[in-house]
């Protein structure tokens, strides 16, 4: 049994050690906005914020979360930066299939919290999430807009 802080709430979960946070979120807590893509921290679809930093939840064992605050896409707009990122995503019509975009939004939010006015290279190296639809240029445009908003 672990007690996690998810989107500001304490949540008790009955899972084994070693269970990735991703599947605790999706299958135990029903927070399906965070996506499973690869399971090996390559694609970034499972990105959440852990104490404000982008973290790939598929490779984060539940016991490693400890007291850290986890923010998922479901609560990203409670954060001022996250609210601006989502607004920029919508205005720029970034998503195509949309499956990777929860992770992209979380990665962008973490980037802008750390680097409020990112250069192009900051976006390039700070946003390594895969998008199979190839929305990379739209993502970069939305990040730049959210930074200026």
């Amino acid at each position, binding site marked *: 049994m672990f007690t996690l802080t998810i989107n500001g709430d304490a949540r008790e979960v009955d*899972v*084994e050690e070693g*269970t*990735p946070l991703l*599947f605790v979120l*999706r*299958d*135990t807590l*029903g927070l*399906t*906005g*965070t*996506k*499973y*893509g*690869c*399971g*090996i921290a*390559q*694609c970034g*679809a499972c990105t959440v914020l852990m104490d404000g930093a982008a973290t790939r939840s598929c490779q984060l064992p539940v016991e490693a979360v400890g007291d850290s605050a986890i923010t*998922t*896409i*479901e609560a*990203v*707009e409670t954060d001022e930066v996250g609210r601006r990122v*989502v607004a920029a*995503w*919508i205005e720029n*019509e*970034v*998503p*195509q*299939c*949309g*499956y*990777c*975009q*929860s992770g992209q*939004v979380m990665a962008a939010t973490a980037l802008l919290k750390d680097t409020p006015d990112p250069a192009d290279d900051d976006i*390039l190296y700070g*946003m*390594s*999430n*895969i*998008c*199979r*639809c*190839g*929305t*990379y*240029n*739209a*993502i*970069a445009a939305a990040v730049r807009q959210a930074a200026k908003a």
Partner: protein
Amino acid sequence: MTTSSHTAAGLSRRTFLAGSGAFVLGAALPARVLAEAAGAGEGAAAMAPAPGTRVAAFIEIGADNAVRFLSPFVEGGQGIATGMAQTVGEELDVDPSRITVDYAPPGPDYLVVNGMRLTGGSFSTRSSFPVVRRLGATARDMMLRAAAARLEVDAASLSTSDGVVTHAATGRTLTYGDLAEEAMALTPREDVALRDPAAFRWIGKPVARIDVADKSRGLAKFTIDQVVDGMLFAAVVHAPYYGTEPLSLANAADVKAMPGVHSVHTLPGAVAVTADSWWRARKAVEALDVTWSDPAPSGIDTVAADFSSAAMRAALAASTAEGVSVEAEGDVDAAFAAAAKTVEAEYDAPYLAHAQLEPPSAIARFNADGTLEVWLPNQMPDAFLKLCAEAGGVAPEKVTLHQPMLGGFFGRHFTYGSGNPFPQAIALAKATGRPVKLVWSREEEFKMDAMRPLSFTRFKAAIGADGMPTAITARTVGEGPLGRYFGAAPDSSMVEGITEKPYAIANRAMESVALPHPVNIAFWRSVGHSMNDGFYESFLDEVAEGGGQDPFALRKALLAQSPRHLALLDEVERISGGWKRGPYTVDGTVRARGVAMASPFGSETATIAEVSIADGATKVHHVWVAFDPGSVVNPAIVKRQVESAVALGLSAVLVEQAVYENGQRRDANYDTYQVLRREMMPAVTVSIVESGAPMGGVGEPGLPGVPGAVVNAVAALTGTRVRSLPLANTALSGA
């Protein structure tokens, strides 16, 4: 290999073949649709009882005036839901942003693609545009007549605006929701007028996509996100060699005792565990100690223990089988006999995975009343329904499909036999008596995904004394998905992009040779065009070089009698700042450009790519595409679709390959299966040219020009002509 499991259910071979030409070439739409597309579609004949005519099957209007459109096409990122909302909204007179679009259930009303139903072949908009307009107009007319009866006025005295009927003389208004029940009871008229295109408010405009807000907030629900009360989670491990079977489990009792495990199963070609969470099911199934049957030791008839991509490529190249002519014109032998010079080259492209980000999944539930419900991703509902019925042992009318939007598809979600998880989910639900949600891990998906076929073509060209090509021949060896799944022979999906090129080369002889792959093969975004246009356009640059011609000038010369293609070349030249092949220096890097053209899915493209070389690898800086689909519904979505297709084309030409070694796929996940990442994404400039030609496809046509343009740019820069994709397999040095 090619047993009944490879046959698409729900379609006789004859039925599909009637449509297969249209699937590939866009040339065989029903006469009524073509007539309407040409603007001649008014009158009673246009409303014969047929798919796409029953208003109630497509349009639902609630008492609260909410409007729902049941779409024949699944949304998977291509923007089709928005296009449907624009098109029906335009004629119905409802703002598209107020329309909810859902994927319609299986059934005869929705067979609007040449009497079939599929989301593919870049068919959605072009096949349904007149049909959906007419549905909207017919429904609006029913609203007007219902309002006229209610208000006891002449319908001609009424007007509509965004779902509200107004009687201007008295100021009285009624919403469509107020009228829906009475309106839907009326007999649809067969002669409704369509809106004058000059007065379009939404069609042809960059209307905002209706799905981006939910997708930006993590609210979109894919199949993998679905939950059913009381369900078990299931995970599978497939046989290490495709086609082999589980023989025994050494530790089934130990695995069954693992936390949360419900049951352990063997399935055709796989083992499975059900549990109370997916992670527990996965850990347990991967702990099973399975003895599998042995593959054949050698050969390419099956996926043998020594099967490899390299061996398959060698077999395609070594084939001496007689080919079947797929295009013949003029006298090739005479042209070669008279040639001043000849050029010959061999091209190949690898197997490719779809690598859509959403791993495949399915939920199956047998209900107490004998019905079966299945949640699954699909591009062809009626075929999946029939297969679900067969897998569940129930009659098709007892099956209900739930069909969420797709987390990417690119051709992934047709029926590919063992390449789909739903038969396993159904088998497990039947065995356990519980609803079962089966998710394939990424590793299982990369093991079982049906693949874009590896392909091989040998070209020869004859060049005259003036440096112009006088003849071209091509011999393509292999197998395509239209042949595999629908019996097409010769298989146009093998040779599209080599045949029907627009260039005025008088003597042509193109042939295909059927040599089946032992692996599961698939439709993949732009199908045969995904490799063949690249082969042809690269070889055309070799022909240009052989004749001492500039490749851009040669294309213009060969298209001198084709205004539509010349206009595209002019446009791509304009948006790229004028043709310059290079090498030249920009920002301290030496760069060069390549050009390629393609005519896929009823549309036309001209593409220029600019590249440099860094650390032996190709860096693409900019891709310019002039794109002529005839006419468009949403230019913003079209541009994004072309950019998306460019990205996938770049992925294919630069880095992507699904490799077999020793009978197994080499790459199990994205760490080694390379796909286009952010650092590889160039600037993309798209210019839409609306020539007014019959509407062509959008989702796929942006891809086929990309490989050729990039390979040609690399050749211009390095002097190295890479004929085997991806480029990453060849170490390159910059000029």
